[in-house]
């Protein structure tokens, strides 16, 4: 049997023109969206002291009461006209329709609400959904809350639950373990580009040690919810010596499993300027997707150019001969980046962006993500971390939160390796951190200024799911920048 597709080539060409002109009209509706507050819990392997709704309440209280808003928090709460509740896994929570419990607990019924879910990118998609509610005019002031409690099952059962977010007919049955999927990607990434074990380990050292200055971080040994075996400072030998999980990834190359919650409040820009003297504008936002099975990414020679995924500062000759997307490529990350940069007018991220919170599920994926974000050429992710000053003798970076490139700082919070990965909260934690960075409030919330990026004007939060199936990129700017 054959099907007549019935789509003439000229129609396909016209489609692009029509799309571009329509999109221009839709986007320019005059509304902009700003972050006005953030809050989060301390993260821990097991927050048995609180239920999910109690954790979200803690984060919401912090957002309303501690962000120096211009009005009484109770009045501000009454202005909220929509909520987004994001959590990843019905299996971990053993509670469907959890949003109903959360909204009730926060006293935010009968406002419109929606659950955002997309694997590891659940938090980023939550913020993007909240952005869309405000941008569209369906709401002016939205609370975005994310949470996860992963501790109610054993770690191995948890690994299995996470792997249910892989293709359960073909991938889950033969591995059942996300670290292995990423490890196989890392093997190929290393094969293609010659990334070294040391470059991978450096990511772990940077993020884990940053986290020691993050009040909320699970590996911060001062956090009462930290566990002794997975907290405190590390050096590069600790990474090398940590248990092999799936070659080439060792225990300290892998992200955490966490309990906790995070909240941000998003407002229409004019309202935001009334609510706070220091709103942070969402100046660019993008989403991207790719195949569930990493082995299915349809690679072609020069595919990056054919799919129109070059960033403004990149030259076609860099990638004309590169097969793309490879099994190790995060095409979703690149698509989201391109969309967000176009909207934010980012010409060169190395010059334009000061601070990045990205989804370091594994050390390898942090290096890969530098490339998707255009901070390094494809294949040069390892060289980018080598631009940070490293003390070879001590096996640590010379500074906490080391500078990379000319003025880029990546994962000051410690990211998923150092701070947390309570899946539904993760993307919101990242946006909250960039928000506080641009407001210069890292000292206020951490009780030390080690992680504050001085003079940060633009930041970026990158949220990522699966083996790269869903990605959001959010560019944030100080008001007026």
């Amino acid at each position, binding site marked *: 049997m054959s099907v007549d*597709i019935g789509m003439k080539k000229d129609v396909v060409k016209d489609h692009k023109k029509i799309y571009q002109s329509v999109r221009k009209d839709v986007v320019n509706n005059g509304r902009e969206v700003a972050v006005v507050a953030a809050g989060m819990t301390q993260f821990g392997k097991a927050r048995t*002291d609180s239920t999910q709704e109690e954790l979200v309440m803690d984060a919401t209280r912090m957002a309303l009461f501690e962000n120096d808003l211009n009005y009484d928090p109770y009045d501000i709460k009454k202005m909220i006209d929509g909520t987004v509740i994001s959590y990843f896994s019905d299996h971990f929570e053993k509670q469907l329709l959890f949003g109903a419990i959360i909204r009730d607990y926060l006293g935010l019924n009968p406002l419109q609400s929606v659950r955002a879910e997309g694997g590891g990118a659940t938090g980023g998609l939550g913020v993007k959904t909240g952005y869309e509610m405000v941008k569209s005019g369906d709401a002016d002031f939205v609370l975005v809350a994310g949470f996860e409690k992963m501790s109610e099952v054993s770690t191995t059962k948890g690994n299995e639950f996470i792997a249910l977010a892989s293709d359960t007919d073909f*991938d889950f049955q033969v591995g059942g373990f996300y670290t292995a*999927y990423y490890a*196989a990607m890392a093997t*190929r990434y290393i094969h293609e580009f010659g990334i070294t074990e040391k470059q991978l380990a450096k990511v772990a050292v940077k993020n884990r040690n940053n986290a020691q200055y993050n009040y909320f971080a699970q590996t911060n040994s001062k956090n009462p919810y930290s566990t002794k075996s997975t907290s405190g400072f590390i050096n590069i030998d600790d990474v090398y010596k940590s248990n092999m999980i799936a070659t080439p990834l060792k225990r300290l190359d892998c992200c955490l499993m966490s309990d906790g919650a995070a909240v941000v409040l998003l407002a229409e820009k004019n309202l935001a300027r009334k609510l706070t003297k220091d709103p942070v504008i969402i100046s660019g936002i993008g989403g991207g997707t790719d195949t569930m099975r*990493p082995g299915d990414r349809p690679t072609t020679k020069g595919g990056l150019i054919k799919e129109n995924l070059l960033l403004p500062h990149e030259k076609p000759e860099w990638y004309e001969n590169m097969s793309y997307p490879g099994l190790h490529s995060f095409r979703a990350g690149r698509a989201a980046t391109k969309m967000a940069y176009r909207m934010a007018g980012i010409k060169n991220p190395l010059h334009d962006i000061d601070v990045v919170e990205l989804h370091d599920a594994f050390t390898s994926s942090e290096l890969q993500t530098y490339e998707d974000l255009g901070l390094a050429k494809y294949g040069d992710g390892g060289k980018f971390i080598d631009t940070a000053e490293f003390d070879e003798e001590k096996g640590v970076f010379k500074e906490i939160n080391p500078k990379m490139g000319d003025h880029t700082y990546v994962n000051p919070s410690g990211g998923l390796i150092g701070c947390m990965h309570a899946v539904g909260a993760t993307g919101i934690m990242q946006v909250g951190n960039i928000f506080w960075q641009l407001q210069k409030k890292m000292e*206020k919330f951490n009780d030390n200024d080690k992680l504050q990026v001085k003079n940060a004007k633009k930041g970026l939060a990158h949220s990522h799911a699966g083996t790269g199936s869903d990605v959001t990129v959010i560019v944030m700017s100080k008001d007026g920048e």
Partner: protein
Amino acid sequence: MVVGEKYRSKNREQIIVEQPYHIQYRHSFGEVSKFFKGLHEKKLYGTICRGKEHHMSGEDNLFVPPRADCPECMVPLEEWIELQNEDIRVYTFTTMYFSGENFLDKLPLTLINVEFPRYNNNYSKLISILITNEKDEINIDKKDLKIGMKIKPKFKEMPLEKIDASALYFVPAGIL
């Protein structure tokens, strides 16, 4: 006081209980059931789409795991090809020393993505297991375990009503 201290619970009393949860699913493999029937019959099947004028690669698309429809042409696929005797290679690999609950007793275990170099391999880098020592089914990191290594499929006896993708595994082409 650190801001967050205000929001940390002071209530230390916790009751923690055990709650079991078991589910049995009646799952259909739908239009790619032939693939799983094939595993039962010791055959490795893929589907192929010959509508290459619509494919970004300009070549036929081989699908292993099989797809019943081509994502580029939107055409239902009814051509199945046998692949068990084809040139099959390791595209990438990892040796697992930790896993989800179902695989703990099988560790260490080598996971591979396979490729079929004779075909346009765009959609077909199937995930599977590589057994390097058939006798005791223990996998070890071997020097000859490398990208590009020639392998061949093997099939585990599994009743058809319980079949899943783990009925298929691979061994180095030099063994047996």
